[in-house]
């Protein structure tokens, strides 16, 4: 009797635990599947024919989805892609890149570079205004420069602007900066700095100001409403410095999960989202109902994925070992298997097909025999016959580190398999992003990483490859150090002639490929889905991408959706 009662108690305790877990483990797919079905209830909306032609009109709301919420809308403080995506609709820079990626004026009419290449004078457009009707003058630009170079400002972008030895605003429409030495990436840096209003920020602490959540800018849109964890709504700025955008409102909904975003897209609750290769190459072709209303865009991104060696650790300090691993990895297999063909091989740290990418360079071909031969010259052979190469009695084994990202994890599995075939035993370790960066990358506690670089448009990669950039938290965390590369990177910053500059970076890429401090894996395509109610999108995309002319996009009023009341 007593025994039974006790067993009951125990039994219930254990079982309660398992029931809760059963819900997590088993029902999640069912719940997701059930949500998927609800999308079909909205199919009635799909009867509208989105192929008719309408003239451009000023109307409509474009709804897109983002995975993360910005921490604030001052881009130099937030330093994250979610913030700059929204902030770049609100703030202007002095310069911008046009659709062919040539620099052109945004807030400035023109600019002059002095004969000694050290001084740049910017001439602002006349009668510029902030969204609150205050005039925008060179004092605002000077103020922004002071803020970005201020030691108290917590920004990762300060170093470029600290090279300016003198900045002045001789009159309301003129801004002049002087560098100690010619600095080739200078104009590029001014195209990336959002100009902030002095009259609202002069008495504020820029790191903590409420302005970051209630910004006033000069670009096409101004912030109308920001609902935490749900959406940011932008509405047209009547004082916009670049003329009026055609779409009335931009609504960015915060939906952390890509699969959930896709369901919202299928249910016609959002107009645009970035797709992953599976959604693009597998789900879309199988869903004619989606294809009818949603257009897909594909463009090569300005980024690449790589396998990087910790050059401070043995045996990766040996170039033969690095080259051997490069030969042992089948890059095409990764492009086909992980990116489902939606990627390109790369052989230099620049976007394939651009001026800076050296067309003579070819990726290391997949050649396991050559890899084995190279490892043999480096002293690695299978002496004890256990299938794993060894040297001085120690087996060749290491850990491949990457962050929680399905594609990188799959890449790791493919690499592991190929290395295993030539007798290198690699383990994979997948980590959450914050601890990946904080505990392993910044203190350089890793053997090998699979990671990606997003690139700026200027070819200067001093911060990634120069031997002086190896302190904890700096970008050269693989500890690459080559005097020839250092010299080329320094020359590249001083050289303003584009053709000479190109030669410098082609030479730099060539050395980098031979040295093989990283194994280039692939450059993935950016994949975007946009509802066909949105018009005016350039297809095929110009070099600057489909996003270069969002202000010309329009939604014919016949297609504009009804406003949701709580937005």
């Amino acid at each position: 009797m007593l025994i039974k009662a006790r067993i009951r108690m125990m039994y219930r305790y254990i079982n309660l635990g398992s029931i809760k877990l059963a819900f997590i483990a088993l029902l999640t797919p069912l719940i997701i599947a059930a949500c998927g079905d609800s999308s079909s209830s909205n199919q009635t909306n799909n009867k509208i024919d989105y192929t008719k032609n309408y003239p451009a009109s000023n109307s409509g709301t474009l709804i897109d989805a983002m995975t993360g919420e910005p921490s604030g809308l001052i881009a130099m403080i937030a330093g994250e892609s979610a913030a700059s995506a929204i902030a770049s609709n609100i703030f202007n820079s002095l310069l911008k890149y046009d659709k062919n990626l040539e620099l052109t004026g945004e807030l400035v009419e023109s600019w002059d570079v002095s004969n000694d290449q050290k001084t740049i004078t910017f001439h602002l457009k006349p009668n510029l205004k902030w969204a609150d009707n205050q005039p925008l003058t060179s004092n605002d630009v000077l103020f922004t420069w002071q803020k970005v170079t201020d030691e108290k400002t917590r920004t990762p972008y300060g170093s470029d602007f600290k090279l300016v030895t003198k900045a002045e605003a001789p009159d309301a429409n003129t801004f002049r900066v002087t560098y100690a030495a010619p600095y080739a990436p200078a104009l590029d840096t001014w195209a990336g700095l959002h100009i902030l209003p002095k009259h609202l920020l002069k008495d504020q602490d820029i790191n903590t100001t409420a302005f970051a959540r209630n910004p006033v800018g000069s670009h096409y849109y101004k912030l109308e409403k920001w609902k935490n964890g749900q959406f940011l709504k932008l509405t047209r700025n009547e004082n916009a410095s670049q003329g009026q955008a055609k779409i009335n409102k931009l609504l960015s909904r915060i939906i952390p999960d890509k699969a959930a975003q896709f369901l919202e897209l299928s249910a016609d609750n959002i107009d645009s989202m970035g797709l992953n290769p599976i959604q693009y190459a597998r789900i879309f072709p199988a869903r004619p109902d989606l294809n009818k209303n949603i257009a897909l865009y594909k463009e090569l991104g300005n980024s690449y994925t790589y396998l990087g060696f910790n050059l401070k650790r043995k045996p990766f300090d040996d170039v033969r070992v690095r080259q051997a691993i490069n030969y042992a990895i089948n890059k095409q297999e990764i492009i086909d298997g992980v990116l489902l063909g939606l990627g390109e091989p790369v052989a230099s740290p620049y976007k394939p097909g651009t001026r800076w990418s050296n067309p003579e360079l070819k990726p290391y071909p997949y050649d396991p025999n050559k890899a084995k031969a190279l490892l043999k010259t480096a002293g690695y052979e299978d002496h004890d016959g256990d299938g794993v190469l060894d040297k001085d009695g120690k087996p060749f084994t290491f850990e491949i580190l990457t962050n929680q990202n399905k594609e990188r994890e799959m890449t790791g599995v493919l690499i592991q398999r190929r290395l295993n075939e030539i007798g290198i035993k690699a383990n994979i370790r997948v980590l959450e992003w914050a601890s990946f960066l904080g505990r392993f990358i910044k203190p350089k506690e890793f053997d090998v990483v699979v990671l990606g670089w997003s690139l700026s448009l200027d070819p200067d990669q001093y911060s990634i490859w120069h031997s002086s950039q190896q302190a904890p938290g700096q970008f050269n965390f693989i500890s690459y150090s080559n005097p020839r590369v250092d010299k080329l990177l320094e020359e590249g910053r001083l050289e303003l002639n584009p053709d000479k500059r190109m030669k410098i970076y082609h030479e730099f890429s060539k050395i980098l490929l031979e040295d093989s401090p990283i194994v280039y894996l692939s450059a993935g395509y950016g994949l975007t889905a946009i509802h066909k109610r949105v018009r005016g999108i350039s297809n095929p995309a110009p070099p600057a991408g489909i996003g270069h002319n969002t202000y010309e996009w329009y939604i014919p009023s016949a297609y504009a959706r009804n406003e949701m009341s709580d937005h």
Partner: protein
Amino acid sequence: MRKLFSNPLVLIGFIIIASILLLAIIAPLIAPYDPDAIDVKAILLSPNSQHLMGTDGLGRDVFSRMLYGARISLMVGFVAVGIATAIGIVLGAIAGFYRGWVDTLIMRIVDVMLSIPTFFLILAVIAFLTPSIWNIMIVIGLTSWMGVTRLVRAEFLSLRNREFVLAAQALGAKDGRLIFTHLLPNSLTPIIVSSILGIASAVLVESGLSFLGLGVQAPQASWGNILTDGKEYIQFAWWLSLFPGLAILITVLGYNLLGDGLREAYNPRSSQH
């Protein structure tokens, strides 16, 4: 034994567990493919005659991975519960036999451990360790011994003053002999029942951890991480979610039926006939 299997639920539970065990043991013999063999030309094939359960995002055979995954899931269950039961028996026996302040101390530790949600405790511990199957087993074991401890203590407390124990003690039996030959064998039934039910929950915890990416690491297959992979493709590759989900469901059900049936069978109240 016959009485045990006269309960159809026990029989079903037994058959389920025995067949999964068998499949796991002979996995290398019956798996049609190497579970880690990648084939980028055969990505995400639906179930067919070559691939009984289809292929995953890297073209690996899901059926083979399921078989090898069964080994992981079952091994985690047995080892973790073995650790938990061993700790539970030792602590429970000490507390129940010696009583007094030792008992109070051990039971307060149990209370403290029980007040922390186990799954989150495991998550927190795993975050500081290298995720691997061995760490998972140890951590699950070290965080789930409290139930067994309470159970063994309760058994000992009730048996401690029975006539046969007192008699043995009067005859001069030492503490060790009392514990190992008199008390423990008479407490075994509830321990076995709780262990079997514990295996079920350990299997679920392992699947849950692997689902969250903190359990068994790629490329090693476990039901939990096959299920995670399937989440990405659920809109069109149902086989990647259904089979591991079903396997977990059936295994846990099997253990629960078996444990439940054993409890009924050895219950003194139902052994009247």
